[in-house]
């Protein structure tokens, strides 16, 4: 009874406001919690706060939004929290592809199927970085030098995106790399600047400052085509000047990490549709363009069947690497 009247109320509010698309019949009635599955300051946290900021600024909802960080256990804390909040449409979970990758390789108490997928909003690219004064100029040179077997590759976390990519490089390039896991990409970048490791595969935003500062440079980008034109980063080069890895003889066509948005499981289709619509509105703002440009990400919007398809494909891929490495949890 109460549910019906609430529903009617929200419909009438939407009708009165005159801007409610047919699907967005559900409207939030209390404060919304954005759960960032990462600590303060990381890429996922930045996304959640950027979205919060845009929604608030453009008054896309009347309800206040709070961002909470649940980054424990490489993000598992946030996803487990989402699973435990089944049916609660006031918790929006921000994460990455580790929503489906992590359950594959470690015994965590959630799977992505426990959550309701909303959208993948931005793709972070991966690049191969080396120290500024390293002798090799192309990925080919790098692979030749790495054949000695003494190269150390740094990355964020273990058995996560960075290590999966490292194992792919090993396989395609016929080399052996020692993978050293750090807490974050930023940490790996500092270790490379100090010469403690030989390379890492950071996202653009994680090493932007280091590239500008002349402590490290990208060899190639794991993308089918070069990155879009943008402002110059160093005196002479910008992101679009970085060759693709395929161009340089490292045959990995595409490897990227989507930033993903989820609701807890067991929410109604209307509630999910509301948030899909909200994220679409966010994406149409100039502030979003600004955020994408500043963090050097690629603007995408996958939802519904497309998003499912993407997850399935990525999962196949990771499963293959994980099986070869013996990482799968029984």
């Amino acid at each position: 009874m109460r549910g019906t009247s609430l529903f009617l109320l929200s419909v009438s509010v939407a009708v009165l406001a005159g801007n409610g698309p047919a699907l967005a019949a559900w409207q939030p009635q209390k404060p919304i919690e954005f759960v960032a599955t990462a600590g303060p300051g990381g890429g996922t946290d930045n996304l959640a706060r950027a979205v919060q900021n845009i929604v608030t600024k453009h008054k896309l909802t009347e309800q206040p939004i709070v961002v909470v960080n649940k980054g424990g256990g490489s993000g598992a804390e946030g996803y487990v929290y989402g699973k435990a909040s089944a049916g609660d449409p006031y918790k929006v979970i921000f994460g990455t592809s580790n929503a489906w990758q992590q359950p594959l390789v470690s015994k965590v108490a959630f799977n992505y199927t426990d959550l309701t997928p909303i959208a993948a909003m931005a793709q972070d690219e991966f690049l191969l970085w080396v120290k500024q004064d390293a002798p090799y100029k192309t990925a080919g040179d790098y692979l030749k030098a790495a054949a000695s077997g003494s190269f150390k590759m740094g990355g964020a976390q273990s058995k996560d995106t960075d290590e999966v990519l490292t194992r792919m490089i090993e396989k395609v390039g016929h080399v052996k790399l020692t993978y050293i896991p750090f807490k974050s990409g930023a940490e790996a970048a500092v270790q490379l600047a100090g010469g403690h490791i030989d390379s890492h595969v950071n996202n653009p935003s994680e090493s932007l400052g280091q590239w500008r500062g002349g402590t490290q440079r990208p060899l190639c980008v794991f993308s089918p085509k070069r990155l879009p034109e943008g402002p110059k980063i160093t005196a002479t080069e910008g992101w679009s000047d970085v060759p693709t890895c395929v161009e340089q003889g490292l045959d990995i066509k595409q490897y990227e990490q989507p930033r993903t948005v989820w609701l807890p499981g067991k929410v109604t289709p209307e509630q999910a549709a509301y948030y899909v619509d909200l994220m679409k509105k966010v994406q149409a703002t100039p502030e979003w363009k600004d955020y994408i440009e500043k963090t050097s990400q690629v603007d995408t919007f996958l939802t519904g069947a497309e998003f499912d398809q993407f997850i399935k494909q990525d999962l196949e891929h990771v499963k293959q690497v994980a099986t070869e490495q013996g990482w799968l949890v029984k």
Partner: protein
Amino acid sequence: MGNLAELLHGFTIAVTVPHLVLMAVGVLLGILVGVLPGLGAPNGVSLLLPLTFGMQPVSAIILLSSMYWGALFGGSVTSILFNIPGEPSSVATTFDGYPMARDGRPTTALATAFGSAAFGALIGVILITFLASWVAQVALAFGPPEYFAVYFLAFASFVGMGGAAPIKTVVALAIGFAIAAIGIDTVSGSVRLTMGIDELVKGVNFVVAVMGLFGIGELLVAVEEEFHARAVSSKIDWREVFRAVGRLPRHSVALLRSAAIGCWMGITPGGPTAASFMSYGIARRFSRRGRYFGTGEVEGIISPETADHAAGTSALLPMLSLGIPGSATAAVMMGGLMIWGLNPGPMLFVDQKDFVWGLIASMYVGNIVAVALVLLTVPVFAALMRIPFVVIAPLIVIICVVGAYSVSNSYLDVVMMLGFGIVGYLFKKLFYPLAPLVLAIVIGDKAEDAFRQSMLMSKGSLGIFFANKLVTCLVVAGIALLLLPLVLQLARPFRKSTSPAAETAAQEKVII
């Protein structure tokens, strides 16, 4: 001298009416979040962050960093008055601060803490001003083996310190390591020691552990021992504030030594927590009144506070120059930097001179504003100690429960906090030291990561800890600190002995 000219230019930016007002507002808000349970500097700064998006980057960073200073000062207040440290770095302040406050001298304890903290911060800023570029280079020299060596040094300065029986210290450390291991392991990516409780995958939060161990543990002891206890009669005495600050120069050796340790640990990215523990440990060893540490010694407050703030301040430098956030708060500020359109990194000092030097100048001014404001609040806070125990005890329980819950809105944390309270009580009753336990919980997992990363790099050879001068020096210093008490013990029979029985009795009393 180029830096000096830049700094003067920075002052012209920082010392303007709007910026001074921002500093005062930031500091006051900071004290508030520092004193309130479970809020703390990182949360406070993230709450304030969205408000700054419309501001000039310089104004925004001045507001946020002032809040940080305020929160650091505010965090010491609860450590001293209620034995509840709000930040990992103010744990060591409780060891002597709380006994002194219980002893009826809360004003002295607070004023001493604030005074020495301001001194530490000042030394930290001076270091940043003159050694910015050099410091950035030093930080780069730190790879996993060097990190491990720094943590090892911090542990060694504590184990060797004595006080409790060394075996009890080792047991406490081991329990701490086990607690730090709970959750996802960075190096293998697997889940450890969650005992079937899914939520434990996030690990044990420091605040939860410390509120239980110190806040609740101390309360249980107090209930048992001095239930009819007295409210501490503390007069609101303004003059004592100034007298306490005026007495600080008498402890100039402790001040300088602690500031040096703090700066060193801030630059080598050991951080404020390791710095304050190490400074306390070393002060206890080398101070003439070392054996009275733990009963409310002035130098026992000066040492951790000075080192904490010196490290906290100089740790902002790696954030600016290298883009490594030295603490959770620095990480939030770095997120802010990027949103304001600035990229932390070496180019910041070249591209954004106004920003960098405006910030550095504001550290001088902001800390002066902060210390002036907190000293004014001392009598107010000290008056809290006059509230009778029967009123304050339930309040402490509420503070701890709310604080533990608000860390991540989880009931499990509240249960764990109460569990830690019982552990804290048992430790006190059985004369096990709490400090090594806390130290291991806070930096145990970092030390473990660094060690295993080193082992991966060297393919399992311990030689990596002696591979270059820097790491060798650190490791040798650590081993020396570890063996020092052993050597002293062996040497003791040859010296004129001070009655051993009396010494043991004194030591039993000051186990912390």
